């Protein structure tokens, strides 16, 4: 034993254990997110429980666990849905209370635009006070009709009315601007013109509203009657239904198809019900756009600093100062950058821009409030060190011989740098940019105070001049996680969505990082060859 301790082997094993714990933590976390994130769209069987007291419950099994402080007692968490009927999505039942557990073939899941899922059996179509029997198969055409209608309504509401609103807003601002000018006959004429245009627009707006109301009325005409597990009947307008499925009847292929459809909707769809359902497309779009703007800002600054440090600065006070600044930028908490962004970019800079160029909309701020531009600039300060470090690495990998060859041919320093060194260091710059993007994509705290919102009414890019709206607020995957997981009214029902969002974010960050590593390794090999 003494020998064993003396050899130090147990201690080595202990340190190995620490590394193992690290590895297990990472893999555990990844597996946890993957299982929870990938799992949620897989159609689960609908179970019908009959309880001891005769109650019948229909739903999906969400979780099964042992009852604390009781031996061999288990309980089941059932997602019963029907939030508008039962008031809650989940129910705990003691396994001891279950009399029978069946999987009814005709049980249906109705995915609705509001109130979450509905579990039940299709009874029929409501018509003139009576109920006409309806087969689940014939629902498809009904749904097709209602989806077409939904698209039409959305087109009118978003595109046409949006367009009119945009023009009304412009006209209103023009009126305001005219009111600020010195009154003269010419201007008065102009005011009258603009007012006439405004009236015309308002008439148009009212017309569109009427059309919309008509469509809505039409949409609400068809209703299906659904039989709930406890025998109650629930009337659901077809228009409310997004999709119906019969998971107990599905084969593997049908399930895969369903899964893909759901995942597709998740990536490309818009969020519904306070972000707890639907998709995350606006958040993905916001994240990507923010990261792109950020990289436009960060790359020049980072590369200049790296070139300065590597090529121009000797070992003097300034270069040491720059080095310490870079390491400090990496170490300063992100929230401090956020605070700086709020005070400097938004209030000082944005407020100034508003006063100069957007005085007609004041006191409503245009640039003087959080927006995608300010958030991106804030993050670009935060990610400078990442670009600097990677670019420096790329620059040091450029062989000396290349530079010397260039100088020998009579090139100046900048010519050498521009034509020889920088092209060789491009992979390094690329690595840095990708790593900076990964860092920015995952950062949330500074964004929370510089322009991220839980639900942005419109994307930062749209069809109205000037097409790219840098002052707009945006959605972000990371903030989406925080908001849905911690601020939403129905956290329990939202958690699966949060896991999937987390998965998307995790994959984005991991893929960016892996790309960076691959690029870096390629670069190393490339130079090794080049040196030979």
């Amino acid at each position: 034993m003494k020998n064993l301790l003396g050899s130090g082997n147990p201690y080595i094993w202990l340190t190995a254990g620490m590394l193992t714990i690290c590895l297990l933590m990472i893999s555990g976390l990844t597996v946890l997110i993957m299982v929870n994130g990938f799992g949620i769209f897989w159609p689960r069987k609908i179970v019908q429980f009959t309880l001891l007291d005769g109650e019948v419950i229909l739903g999906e099994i969400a979780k099964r666990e042992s009852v604390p402080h009781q031996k061999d007692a288990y309980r089941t968490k059932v997602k019963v849905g029907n939030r508008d009927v039962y008031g809650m999505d989940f129910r705990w039942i003691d396994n001891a209370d279950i009399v029978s557990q069946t999987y009814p073939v005709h049980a249906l899941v109705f995915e609705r635009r509001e109130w979450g899922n509905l579990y039940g059996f299709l009874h029929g179509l409501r018509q003139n006070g009576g109920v006409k029997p309806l087969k689940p198969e014939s629902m498809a055409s009904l749904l097709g009709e209602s989806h077409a209608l939904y698209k039409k309504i959305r087109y009118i509401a978003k595109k046409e009315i949006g367009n009119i609103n945009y023009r009304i807003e412009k006209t209103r601002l023009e009126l305001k601007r005219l009111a600020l000018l010195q009154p003269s006959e010419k201007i008065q004429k102009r005011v009258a013109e603009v007012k006439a245009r405004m009236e015309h627009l308002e008439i148009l707006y009212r017309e569109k509203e009427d059309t919309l109301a008509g469509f809505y009325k039409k949409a609400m005409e068809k209703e299906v009657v659904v039989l709930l597990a406890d025998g109650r009947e629930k009337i659901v307008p077809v228009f409310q239904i997004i999709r119906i499925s019969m998971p107990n009847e599905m084969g593997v292929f049908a399930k895969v198809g369903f899964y893909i459809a759901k995942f597709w909707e998740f990536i490309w769809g818009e969020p519904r019900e306070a972000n707890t359902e639907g998709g995350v497309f606006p958040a993905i779009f916001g994240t990507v756009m923010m990261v792109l703007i950020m990289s436009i800002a960060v790359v020049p600054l980072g590369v200049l600093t790296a070139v300065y440090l590597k090529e121009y600065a000797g070992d003097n006070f300034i270069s040491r100062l720059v080095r310490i600044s870079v390491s400090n930028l990496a170490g300063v908490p992100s929230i401090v950058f956020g605070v700086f962004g709020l005070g400097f970019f938004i209030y000082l800079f944005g407020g100034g821009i508003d006063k100069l160029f957007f005085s007609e909309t004041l006191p409503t701020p245009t640039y003087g409030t959080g927006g995608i531009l300010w958030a991106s600039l804030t993050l670009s300060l935060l990610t400078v060190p990442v670009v600097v470090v990677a670019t420096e690495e790329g620059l040091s990998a450029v062989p000396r011989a290349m530079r010397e060859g260039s100088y020998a041919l009579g090139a100046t320093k900048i010519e050498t740098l521009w034509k020889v060194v920088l092209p060789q260091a491009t992979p390094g710059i690329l690595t840095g940019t990708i790593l900076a993007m990964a860092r920015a994509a995952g950062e949330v705290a500074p964004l929370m105070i510089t322009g991220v919102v839980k639900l942005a009414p419109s994307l930062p890019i749209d069809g109205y001049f000037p097409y790219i709206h840098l002052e707009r607020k945006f959605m972000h995957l990371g903030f989406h996680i925080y908001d849905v997981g911690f601020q939403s009214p129905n956290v329990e029902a939202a958690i699966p969505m949060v896991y999937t969002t987390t998965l998307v974010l995790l994959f984005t960050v991991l893929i960016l990082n892996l790309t960076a590593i691959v690029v870096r390794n390629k670069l190393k090999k490339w130079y090794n060859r080049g040196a030979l």
Partner: protein
Amino acid sequence: MKSKKRRKLADKTAYWVITLGGAATVVVVFALFFFIFLEVYPLLQGATVTKETTSALPGKAVLLGVDNHQEVAYAVYNDGTIAFLSLPDGGIVKKHQLTGLHRSSATHQDTTNIPSYSPDLQGGEETNSLKTKMQGNYLTSVSKDRHRLILGTNDGQILTVSINFSESFDNGKRTVSPEITEEGLILASPESCGIISAVSRRNEGTTVTVVHAANGRLILIASEVEQALFGAGDKNEIKKDITALVIPYSRDQSLLTYFRDKRTSPLSFLSEGKGGKSWPDTSTVSHPPIYATETEQTDKIEITALALDLFMENLYIGTSSGEIFHINVSDRNNPCLTEKIRVSDKAITALGFLLGDVSLVIGDAGGGVNVWMQVRNEGSPSVWLLRKVHTLASHGAPIVEIDTSQRDKGFVTAAADGTIHLNHATSEQTLLKFATGAQAFTLCLSPKADGILVADAKGRLRQWHLANPHPEATLKTLFGRVWYEGYEKPEFVWQSTGGTDDFEPKLSLIPLIFGTIKGTIYALIIAVPIGIFAALYTSQFLHNSLKIIKPVIEIMAALPSVILGFLAGLWLAPCMERIFPAIIVMPFFITLSIILALFCWKILPVFGKGWCRHGIEALFLIPFIIGAVYLSIRLGGIYESLFLDGDYREWFSNILGLPYDQRNALVVGVAMGFAVIPLIFTISEDAMSNVPNSLRSASLALGATPWQTAVRVVLPTASPGIFSAVMIGFGRAVGETMIVLMATGNTPIMDWNLFNGFRALSANIAVEIPEAPQGGTLYRVLFLAALLLFVTTFVVNTVAETVRQRMKLRYSKL
């Protein structure tokens, strides 16, 4: 071919552009610091006078008031005139003669006993001239209850007048027009003797007025309008003489007859009144022995000041002997003396309530200004006693007037020598002192607390515009213990916003700093050993074919903290709550499993040969550690029932006195440890694997075992790198926002308990800054919090970076 000149110029330009670009980083860091500092700086500034104007008043005013925007001021005169004047140009806008005063003058005529109204009737000659001018009755006392003026006359009447300012906008220009409503007359003193002072409060139909008449009587008048379904409802009025509660002996013998008539003795009167807050049972407060000490107190005590709170419950009476009588008038029929306390050696000359009507400002004849409030007595929680909570700078002369702000806990005091102080109670600071040079005056603080108006005896109205943006933030309130309203003792509290307008912001950063330190320490306790040991193993013992592990852990550093926070808050916290006993036994089982693995390695012949050489221990351990974790979860329940009485939460709170919260510091420690481990790992691994090989080879050649080499040679050589790794890890943990935001309850409590939450500086900024108005005190205090974080991490990072640079230099020399 470009000319040589142009090429040279391009070279030169590039040099400057790149140098400036390089310096931009330095600029950014300095800009960060200076900009945040600039936003914090105004916090440290006191109040300043921005503008001083003087205008003429028609005569000598006894009371002043002003509208919200300091555009129209009013002055009340002894003869019952109220003059409104526009402050920008000094012209009289409106004049109003109180009709109530004249009506009463027809019925009463009693000028034999002219009481003196202290500030303005001291002016000898002028008083006489004023007297001769006056016809009929005149005002002898004035006081304010927000928009209501309570005017006492020389014939024992109380007039209440309410003054409102209505604003109208025309073409973006504001016009303020005053409205006066006379609300009627109360006959307060049946003997028609003048009124020395009167205070009144009104709330939804209930009015309570306390009058001190020239005959020495103190009379409580309460009227309640009962809301009826139809019509105006009944008016219920109670008139009560409460002199006996304060003064045992009155020069006016009619008082005694008053009591005799009522067939009650003052003593029984006292013993009855035990409603409301109960009697203090400490001996410090003596029962007022009304008649017992009559002989020694004869005609010494005189009522000098009155104050009634907004809730119409507490009446404070200041006397010439420096005592405060606290009378509970919540039961209008049986007001009772609840406390009598000596607050000063000198006579009390002025009383006033701070916003919220909890704290009482007391000014005495010696110029002392103190803030007192009722504090729950330690030991007997039902007893509330008056305690001195704040002391402000004193004046050199008796305090004549106190006016309190309607915005914050600020107030203005004026002394007889003409000095004016602007004070703030919470921060215990006198923000502004100035001398008016005039002796007799009346003053008012504007409703937004941004101006002081003073009328002096010569009929001048002087107005000072104030800039007093951050009175509540001083070094003391930010970092020291402060005695807040409703607290038993001075404490560190962070509570920046409250539900009511009269909320006292509590801006102590100490609980937040404490929270940050707590989270950081727990994170480092978890991260430092794991990070450093894993790095040691990776750099010294890990097989070369497994070096791929390093980038894996680097990727771990790239994990967004929002993911860690989400998992910590919504997965780890509930999970840990369920299996907590297993967490306690887990380290033990993991150690055991490592020892077990070691023996397996030794015993099984396969290992140690071929691919299974040393260097793959970390992989070999995986099943063992998973097994240990599984086993500890399975056995956690048994452990709980054996050692923790079956329920760990109760056991912790009963035996150790530690309540268990779901989102606690341990969860944060683990999650933040997760974020910090890769940082510490990468930097210290770099340092260790860069230790020159010659050193290691020498050590091994001398016969040291690999472990001895690692501990005695590699670790000491790499210690600066490890130090900087820990420092950088510390910096990261200090500033980490999302994890602490999501995985703690964000309650600003100061408690080292591992099982409850905390609120960190960073999370606090993230939560509160979106709601903080730009330029406000909270906004700047949050910037200060950011500055603290910046400075801390700046120092830590600079030290770490310098140490690392030195180490690199040393390695290159070896």
